């Protein structure tokens, strides 16, 4: 694998994760538990698509094959998408949505803070811009994790159920492969080992405050680094890509 191929792959991993997570959050639009929260979640979705858009633009430039950001988002299949498994999990109830977002925000918070130091100037600039938004996202979701975990008996049960359900998808966020090895050597990528303990201690702090417990001996699912997904992704893409695929000659 060349450095260029690794960088292209790395960008897709980041952009796909942001886009798929945004797509999931956007499903809540108009259906949130109350208006202010509906707006907060939609806003989060908008920030994530913005991030995805910038990174796809850069990926297209790195690839150098005259594809643009929309080609990358709308004309790749489920065996080419590199988003994390956690991002594509179904919304479930509000507890599951908030917890999924909290784990991703915590990851992004430490990840983008490191990516700012990347020797790749474009990635560094994108990270710099994203970190402001992510700081706000994390504040929002961590306060909701705590509120719902330590709210009523019902909300507590729902949060614990959500944690039991999605904890198994958190492990692979830190998985590294040849792409990382090549790019870490160049000073471009973030060494995910360096942020794992920060992610764990932040997660543990908030989950403790929310009075919910990490399931013991959970098996960690994996696969997204090889574009092996859960069954959810195919449906997300079928919906998202339907129009550009039906009318491939059209411009939007």
């Amino acid at each position: 694998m060349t450095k260029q191929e690794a960088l292209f792959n790395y960008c897709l991993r980041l952009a796909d994760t942001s886009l798929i997570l945004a797509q999931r959050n956007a499903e809540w639009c108009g259906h949130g538990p109350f208006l202010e929260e509906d707006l907060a979640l939609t806003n989060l979705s908008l920030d994530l698509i913005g991030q995805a858009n910038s990174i796809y633009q850069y990926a297209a430039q790195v690839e150098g094959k005259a594809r643009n950001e929309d080609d990358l988002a709308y004309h790749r299949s489920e065996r080419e998408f590199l988003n994390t498994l956690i991002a594509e999990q179904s919304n479930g109830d509000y507890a599951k949505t908030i917890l999924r977002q909290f784990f991703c925000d915590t990851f992004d918070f430490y990840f983008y803070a490191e990516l700012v130091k990347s020797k790749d100037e474009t990635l560094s600039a994108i990270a710099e811009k994203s970190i402001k938004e992510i700081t706000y996202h994390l504040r929002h979701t961590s306060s909701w994790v705590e509120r719902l975990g330590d709210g009523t008996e019902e909300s507590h049960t729902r949060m614990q159920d959500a944690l039991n359900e999605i904890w198994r998808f958190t492990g692979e966020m830190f998985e590294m492969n040849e792409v990382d090895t090549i790019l870490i050597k160049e000073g471009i990528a973030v060494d995910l080992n360096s942020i794992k303990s920060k992610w764990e201690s932040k997660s543990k702090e908030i989950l403790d405050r929310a009075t919910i417990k990490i399931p013991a001996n959970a098996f960690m699912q994996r696969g997204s680094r090889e574009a092996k997904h859960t069954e959810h992704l195919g449906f997300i893409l079928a919906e998202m890509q339907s129009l550009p695929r039906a009318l491939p000659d059209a411009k939007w």
Partner: protein
Amino acid sequence: MDANFEAKLARNENIEPKDWMPDIYRKHLIRQVSQHAHSEIIGMLPEGNWITRAPSLRAKMVLIAKVQDEGGHGLYLYTAAESLNISREELLEQLHTGKAKYSSIFNYPTLTWADIGAIGWLVDGAAIMNQVMLQRTSYGPYARAMVRICKEESFHQRQGYEITCKLAAGTKEQKEMAQDALNRFWWPTLMMFGPPDAASSNSENAIKWKIKRESNDQLRQRFVNQTVPQAELIGLTIPDKNLEWNEAKKGYDFSDPDWKEFNNVIHGNGPCNRERLGARVKAHENGRWVREAAIAYAEKRKQKAAAYQ
């Protein structure tokens, strides 16, 4: 006191929440402002229906931002309505039980991407006609909410027209999609201005109290005059055989919309009435445990803080 209210209206001064106002004026405003707020919130649904399928990343971002603006408008308007001594909970209750109305246009489905263009171009275009007038409405908080809302709405109208322009200039399928959306949304949009002046039961008081400053028919005429050239410019046809320029009145003559359909939709028989209200009720019910948890958590914090003192 009554004389003071009349005098303020006569001087074109705003009525503010602390001023005395006749009960019937207050009731009229609660009805109108809450109906407007509910329309913004219900209006998020037909457009939200296309967020996950918007055909480009840019289109997706623009649409999300737009739907978010609508939600924001709902928030200011609920706040304006609350200043008339009614709670948000009561307002939502009125919506969910069907006591309060919302704009009928949102009971029509968004079947294709072109409908997102048509809603921005036509529906927001029609809403602006009303809202520009309402910036000068007599109730202060409503007028001020409207100033803010108008700025964003005219932006939405341009974005909707831009989507329609792109489709009209696109492939055969895209152009057909744009014409089809215009055909379906034209008549319901004309109905948005309300029944003809002769048959409008709420209009007379609204004009007397300077809540409304122009009649339904005047606004409808202005909308047609503005929109016909926009359609012609991009090669789309207004679906009205009787549409014709009338030099004497310096405006277009056009057919009456089907008021039977209008009444049907108002009375719950539009294509999506059940779905729209059903979605709102379901969101409210599904969100109950979240709202209760937030209250319980805040209460626990308060008790803890008190224990430390």
